[in-house]
């Protein structure tokens, strides 16, 4: 029989106060608690593995019973999507190559220049509020807290907790997630005239976009041998991979005209740039001066998750119709920046709704993420370190 006494009340109060103390310590960051957490995670690994083996058939049976109709509908929709994508695959490939070429010419920071690690989703948050998943790589593979996580569709979230062999990823739909973003006008691909390339630009426009001259030169070195490409902001002098900004034009052989070399041809692989006495092998050296039209960036803001089942929103926008009108269909990509945890130009999603607010708050933009965060299997952790932290190192 349960009896309520003063002594019991004191025990309960003591327990609650202890938890508040633990919570405060943990929120402020306590290495002892972190070690205990890591140790407990290791202890639980075999238990979870065994449980997973036992319960997987049960889970599949449940899904088979409860989600059969959904799977059938989804399969049909995916088949339709596949048919459509096959038709546009060649066009898309050309567009990607074209974009990569332009980015390279512009020396823009892009995801293509940052090493990544492939990870498999091994778990999900077991409560109903957090939007967190668990992946199967950790500090042993170079993963650190704060690194962005992407899949082929776009940004997925960021690393919030790491152990040796696992990491927690907070999804962009989590209500605690925020990242600085850039709202950009959607390309007008559908408005192209008859002689139009896949990107939507005419040949003349493309030629105007990048022009080559004999004036002052910018040198671009591409290390095609590197299996993992470099961080644009890494400092090559400390032994890391060399980047364009680190190069001294006087030390770099310059060709007068752009050259294209076959990376598979061993004769083309000549030592190019010394770094700390070592020699890295680079392949092509081009001299190109670019005159580039500005991309139509409309506005910068902060994208914030809103929880399970709700799409993220962009806040802190200053709507200035004289510059650009924020509207449905605008593209949302990461803004990057000195303190941002994500590099620039990672696609996030598309604006599907605009809600105007009175006062100085500016409009709210609802963003439909490209990536379906409810169905994740394989991801990529972008081993990106913010510029602020690189400078501190």
């Amino acid at each position: 029989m349960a009896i309520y006494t003063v002594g019991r009340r004191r025990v309960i109060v003591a327990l609650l106060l202890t938890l508040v103390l633990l919570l405060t310590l943990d929120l402020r960051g306590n290495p002892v608690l972190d070690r205990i957490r890591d140790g407990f995670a290791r202890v639980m690994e075999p238990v979870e593995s065994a449980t997973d083996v036992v319960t997987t058939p049960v889970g599949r049976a449940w899904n088979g019973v409860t989600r059969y109709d959904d799977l059938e509908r989804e399969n049909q929709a995916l088949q339709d999507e596949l048919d459509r994508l096959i038709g546009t695959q060649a066009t898309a490939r050309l567009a990607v190559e074209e974009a990569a070429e332009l980015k390279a010419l512009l020396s823009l920071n892009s995801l293509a220049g940052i090493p990544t690690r492939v990870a498999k989703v091994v778990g999900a948050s077991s409560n109903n509020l957090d939007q967190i998943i668990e992946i199967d790589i950790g500090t042993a593979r170079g993963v650190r807290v704060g690194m962005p996580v992407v899949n082929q569709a776009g940004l997925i979230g960021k690393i919030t907790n790491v152990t040796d062999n696992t990491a927690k990823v907070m999804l962009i739909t989590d209500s605690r997630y925020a990242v600085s973003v850039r709202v950009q006008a959607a390309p007008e691909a559908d408005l192209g005239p008859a002689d139009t390339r896949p990107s939507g630009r005419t040949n003349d426009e493309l030629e105007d976009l990048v022009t080559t001259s004999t004036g002052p030169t910018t040198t671009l070195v591409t290390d095609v041998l590197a299996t993992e490409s470099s961080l644009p902001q890494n400092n090559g002098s400390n032994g890391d991979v060399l980047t364009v900004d680190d190069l001294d034009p006087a030390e770099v052989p310059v060709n007068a005209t752009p050259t294209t070399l076959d990376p598979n041809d061993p004769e083309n692989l000549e030592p190019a740039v010394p770094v700390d006495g070592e020699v890295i092998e680079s392949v092509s050296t081009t001299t190109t001066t670019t005159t580039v039209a500005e991309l139509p960036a409309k506005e910068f803001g902060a994208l914030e998750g809103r929880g399970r089942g709700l799409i993220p929103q962009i806040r802190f926008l200053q709507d200035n119709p004289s510059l650009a009108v924020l509207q449905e269909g605008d593209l949302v990509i990461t803004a990057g920046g000195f303190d941002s945890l994500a590099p620039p130009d990672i696609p996030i999603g598309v604006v599907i709704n605009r809600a105007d607010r009175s006062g100085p708050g500016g409009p709210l933009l609802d963003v439909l993420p490209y990536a379906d965060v409810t169905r994740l299997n394989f991801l990529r952790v972008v081993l990106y370190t913010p510029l602020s932290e690189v400078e501190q190192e």
Partner: protein
Amino acid sequence: MLAAIWQGPVIRLIPVGMILLALQRSLFVEITIAGVIIQVVLALAAAAGAAGGSERGATAGVVLAVMYDMLEGLPIGSTAIPMTIAGTVAGLLAIIVADPQWWLAMIFTTMGAAVGEIMVPVTRLFTGASDPFEPRLTLIVPVVAIGAGVLSPLFVPLARWCLRIKSAEWVAPPRESSL
């Protein structure tokens, strides 16, 4: 001291909690009702309160939820406080009946789990979450609470075993020899 720990309530609760945690993170993530994940660990904490009173419920809530927070990578206490409150509330409700039948224990467990689930976003609010009260909370709370109630016929005996709670024994009063 070791004997006290060995004979105390925690020694059985930890392995049971580990298995429940593993089930929570594997099976019950898949088995959702209307998209809501059934909280089995919370259900056991509330069932412990219904079976053994507020103090034991709070103790079970602390032990189970600290393990939960550690494994989920959450700040320790962010789930432990709601689960402790869940066990306490279920235990406080159990005071009204001397020896609750299974359906009464089910009601107490349901109500304790409901309060515990409501307390999760409240705790998040104090830890700095900007807007933890999701619109789905009106769906999450009843589903989690009913799920805990459905599991209570299994979890109340389990909690009794874990916490070494003996069933109440009712004995007849001794005969008055003088009569």
